[in-house]
């Protein structure tokens, strides 16, 4: 096969993962660069969701269908990543809920949810 | 034809998404999300037929329900104190109180 075909194969074979990487990094950037506590948690959700997309992508098979057995279907997608991600989604919402609860408490006791201001209040000078 | 309809839905989703991103008002965004949700319901229904396994419409039902709940939720919370700080939002909003 010629080189051009190879590159096309690589592109179509991996672009899902590359986009996932971009999404992950956007989420990760929000978490570490933004000072607003709610925004950080939203970044965390994006980060986690992109990991879910990664897992689900790897389970996909060309020509496969949903892993629910039916007559006259032979090719199914891999069910195991689905199982794992179901669990991970639950973990994700649990973390989000707890993070938001903490943010509410922080707002009540510090009066703000901006990281810089909070750190300034904790270490004056 | 299923595919044509799916593409149309995707286009509509894209347009709604842009409205959601540019805003400008609070209500425009809710409207965009609502429309986006409706389009998602249709998309899920269509994609089931496209892929030849239409028996998973339960998901579409859930989407429709949650869409409604989230619009109600947004309206519910829009009344609260912190939401009212709309000053630097945009020009078309005028406050009564």
């Amino acid at each position, binding site marked *: 096969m010629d080189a051009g075909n190879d590159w096309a194969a690589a592109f179509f074979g991996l672009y899902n993962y590359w986009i996932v990487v971009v999404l992950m990094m956007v989420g990760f950037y929000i978490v570490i660069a933004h000072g607003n506590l709610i925004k950080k948690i939203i970044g965390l959700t994006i980060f986690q969701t992109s990991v879910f997309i990664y897992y689900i992508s790897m389970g996909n098979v060309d020509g496969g269908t949903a892993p629910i057995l039916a007559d006259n279907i032979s090719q199914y997608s891999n069910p195991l990543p689905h199982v794992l991600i179901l669990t991970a989604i639950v973990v994700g919402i649990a*973390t989000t809920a707890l993070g938001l609860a903490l943010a509410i408490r*922080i707002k009540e*006791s510090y009066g703000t949810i901006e990281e810089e201001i*909070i750190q300034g209040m904790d270490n004056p000078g | 034809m299923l595919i044509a309809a799916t593409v149309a839905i995707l286009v509509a989703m894209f347009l709604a998404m842009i409205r959601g991103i540019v805003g400008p008002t609070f209500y425009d965004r809710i409207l965009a999300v609502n429309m986006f949700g409706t389009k998602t319901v249709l998309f899920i229904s269509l994609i089931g037929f496209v892929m030849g396994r239409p028996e998973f419409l339960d998901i579409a039902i859930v989407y429709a329900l949650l869409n409604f709940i989230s619009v109600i939720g947004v309206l519910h919370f829009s009344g609260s104190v912190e939401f009212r700080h709309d000053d630097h939002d945009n020009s078309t909003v005028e406050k009564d109180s």
Partner: protein
Amino acid sequence: MIAHLPILQVIVPLIAAPLCLILRRAHLVWLFALFASGIAFLTSILLLQQVMDTGTIVYELGGWEAPWGIEYRIDKLNAFLLLIITMISTVVLMAAKKGIEKEISSEKHTLFYVLYLLSLTGMLGIVATGDAFNVFVFLEISSLSAYALIALGNDRRALWAAYQYLIMGTIGATFILIGIGMMYQMTGTLNMEDLSRRLPEISQTRTVFAAFAFVIVGICLKLALFPLHLWLPNAYSYAPSIVTAFFAATATKVAIYLLIRFTFSVFGLTFSFTTLPLQTLFIVLGLLGIFVASTTAIYQQNVKRLFAYSSIAQIGYMIVGFSISSVTGLTATLLHVFNHALMKSALFLALGAVMYRVGSVDLKHFHGLGRQMPLTMAAIVVGGLSLIGVPLTVGFVSKWYLLLALIEQGWWPVAVLVLLGSLLAIIYVWRIVEAAYFKPPLANTGDIKEAPLQYLIPIWILILANIYFGIDTRLTVSVAQAASQSLFGVGL
């Protein structure tokens, strides 16, 4: 029932947690939690005995064979860790009733015990399991309960510390999840033993390198390895004392366990240490951790914070021992895991007692405490000596083995640096001793009484254990040695 010990180890505290929620009355819940933790402790003793006698125990959950189902795989390494965790948890729980009386408002006491048991469950689950994804699930159980427990502290800074920990911890857990995903993608399995068989074939692929990097960085975030330690000092200093005592002794140890498990068992020794410059990197980070954290500890005014920094330094010692990658080095690390758990839980419990009587753990409030709370202060002194590594305490034993391992490899400069690091420990421990014994009490403190018995008993159990295991090293050394030999021997 004896065949079911591995699962009982985890589900006893797990089932006890929701039962506590139903019991509701705080002191009943305390007794019940103590009981559950005690049962778990007994289970872990039996397990360790069984493992030492018969070798690795495999328990198939749901009756499904390993790569298809989840299995628990108890070998010497995790049996040892299970013992440490349950032991510390039980002793710390003894003090919990008095400990949370003043630091947590009364309507939250029941929830405190529930979260405590859940956290214990999470750690036990991480250590016992033989399935990579199951590690992630139990990691999240222990982390979520940890965030909440830290946030229960009275100080508003506890909330901020918990939030920071939540962000860092979730990033770490997500990194681990990415790493596990890559490993799974390349091998098709999640079972650790199966992974260790399938990974060598493809160990030269870039994906496996990336998987390794993500798992290790994720674990190091949880481990608070320098320079990823930033969440730890705040979390430890503002959490309720009981929580600090429990976590300082166990949470980082679980992360060390994961590090050992993934590098030695899953990825294999050759991959982890020969193809990657991991050894040099970890030695440098470990030593930097020892020096930076010890130096920072010297300048702390809050004693809890001081000991938190000292914990980061001690993690440095464990990492140095780990990265020698020899049997003696790993033995030293495992010994230090055990010993550090003993001393730090004793020290933080003693600080809890000070907090109970004085209401603060600032260094200036320690003035004159040597006479007012003689038993508590004596405990802090012995614990501090152990931290320095004075002979006849446990701290000496692990440092001794660490030096032996370093000299075995001929790494003299590192050995000298490790000794110098201990000198820094002398300075920060001395500051507390000086304040407690050589400074007059503050004028307006009134009369401070000795800590209540409910505090003193667990503190002194731990302190006596500190001395006992410092003199009679047969048990700990033999188990640690057997565990590290088995890791270097046949793999998993």
